């Protein structure tokens, strides 16, 4: 087990080092950092001084090691655009993105699991086939299209919900939340639904496939033969055995959702990390781009690693399969 743990962690560390290398290459070689920070009046001597202060005159290897060490401590330098610490900029936006992603995840589970169960139990009936077909449509619609359509219907035409912004927020320590104010709660509905759409179809299809498998198994047949009511068989016996893969996929997909949130955030002008990133891309604000890449990849890799380790703890057979 310890060997597996070490191997898995080393693997994750290597991936992160490579991602950091990518971020470093972007940071260091896409444009000259000094050029971004000075103006026409800066003398050559001042530029050289700045270059030395930023450590850009050292060997590239040393610079990379420093970049990794700084990044590990959450120091990604200064944003070119608004001269603030990149880490602080991202930390300010982090709660908005996380609230959006977690709510979207919750919606996808609450809606997707029952839909999956229903389509599996009533396989072949018209509404089940219809839902299955709708799920293909759900996978095919890009999230920005869903966002625009939601805005068009619920904000422009009906005027029920706000189309952009986060509403009023409450500060709790360093975390800001919109969930405690009425305007904040109204504002999060549309973006969260838009973001959850794709995830709902994934959960639904996964639960359906798993349910079909479990419903064929002996213990379900036995439960039925024993005269356990169908509802209990489906929801207590069968569904429980489907939940493990659902939990896995949900945990792994949180990373992907954070990345995808940048599209939703752009549509709804939601003040999260993704919107910050897209603005950084338009202004060629390289440190913010590099930091966002490292942070999102870190969350992505960390979640995958944790899921793998959790699996190995639960199911010892996997330890050998991996090593």
């Amino acid at each position, binding site marked *: 087990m310890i060997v597996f743990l070490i191997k898995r962690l080393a693997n994750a560390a290597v991936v992160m080092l490579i*991602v950091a290398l990518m971020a470093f290459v972007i940071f260091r070689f896409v444009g000259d950092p000094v050029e971004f920070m000075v103006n026409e009046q800066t003398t050559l001597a001042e530029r050289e001084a700045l270059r030395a202060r930023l450590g850009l005159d050292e060997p590239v290897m040393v610079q990379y090691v420093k970049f990794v060490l700084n990044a590990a401590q959450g120091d990604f330098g200064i944003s070119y655009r608004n001269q603030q610490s990149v880490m602080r900029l991202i930390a300010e936006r982090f709660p908005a993105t996380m609230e959006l992603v977690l709510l979207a995840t919750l919606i996808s589970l609450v809606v997707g699991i029952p839909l999956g169960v229903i389509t599996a139990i009533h396989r072949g009936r018209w509404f089940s086939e219809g839902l299955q077909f709708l799920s293909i449509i759900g996978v095919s619609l*890009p999230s*920005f299209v869903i966002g625009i359509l939601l805005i*068009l219907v619920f904000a422009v035409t009906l005027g029920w919900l706000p189309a952009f912004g986060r509403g009023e927020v409450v500060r709790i320590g360093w975390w800001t939340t919109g969930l405690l104010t009425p305007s904040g709660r109204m504002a999060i509905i549309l973006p969260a639904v838009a973001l959850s759409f794709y995830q709902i179809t994934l959960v639904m299809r996964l639960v359906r496939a798993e349910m079909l498998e479990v419903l064929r198994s002996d213990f379900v047949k036995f439960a039925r033969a024993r005269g356990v009511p169908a509802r209990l068989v489906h929801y207590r016996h069968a569904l429980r055995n489907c939940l493990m893969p659902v939990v896995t996929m949900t945990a792994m997909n949180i990373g992907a959702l954070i990345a*995808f949130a940048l599209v939703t955030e*752009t549509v709804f002008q939601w003040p999260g990390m993704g919107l910050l990133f897209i603005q950084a891309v*338009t202004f060629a604000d390289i440190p913010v*781009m590099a930091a966002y890449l490292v942070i999102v990849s870190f969350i*992505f890799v960390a979640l995958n690693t944790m899921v793998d380790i959790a699996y190995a703890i639960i199911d010892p057979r996997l330890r050998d399969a991996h090593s």
Partner: protein
Amino acid sequence: MSVSDSEPGLLTRLRRSDLWYSFTRNKAAMVAALLLALLITTAFAAPWITPQNPFDPAQLDLWNAELPPIWMQGGQWPYLLGTDNQGRDILSAILYGSRISVIIGISTVVLSLAIGISLGLIAGYFGGITDNLLMRLGDVLLSVPTILIAILVSAIARTMLPPGLREVGAGAVLVLAITLSAWVQYARTVRAQTAVERRKEYVQAARLLKVPSRRIMLHHILPNTLTPILVAATLNFGMAILTEATLSFLGIGMPPSQPSLGTLIRFGNQYLFSGMWWMVVFPVLQLSLLVISVNVLGDWLRDALNPKLR
């Protein structure tokens, strides 16, 4: 995307095949195929069937700006789906835009197929260090979300390219950006299959006869890996169109001078609150129909080619 264009004299064989039988029994797949054929044909025929070239300023008329679709009060022939704020015919813009989207989608699939198949064959056939390195590279690429890689690559390309090349090269940059993570899936599939086929007797026989490795890989092994590749390529075509549209929507894809469907949706989105809903709804509809028909076909193909489900 059809099965029929690889070998000669295939029409009769195709009609007798299991695949064709399954196709004729599946209404959704048939409707999707028809729709897709229609969308692609009209997209490529755009210059001959549209009332105007929407990107030739000489043909735009500001008097005809902001017209609603023809069935509404104020709609005007020949602007079937209305015009935008510069007098551009929406239908023409959509057909021209679809052409760009489809070309980028096809180029991405072809390029990632070429890269993925070659690397997959090499990794699976030779094994060892090459295999290990290539597959680890794939792992790393998949451990960063696809959309993020695509955005970063096109953002960096935009900063690095000289300004004169930025607009012309936008399409190529997008193809590269999406290919960068799309090839991994093909490489993995081909590699797994190749590693199995390599040990079979026909390959060993070919080796004993001193058939060159290249020939063994391309002529003996590759045909046996094509079935899963075909499904992946179909679904990937839809994915590539979606990713391209997303990037263009975010403003880092196709420039306004040669807009894809995503760029058109980006424009339309800016007029969402001005009541000109047709500027956004029709491009959205076209994009959705395109991707839905591709995905329905891909879904059917996956089930039809899966021997377990027969």
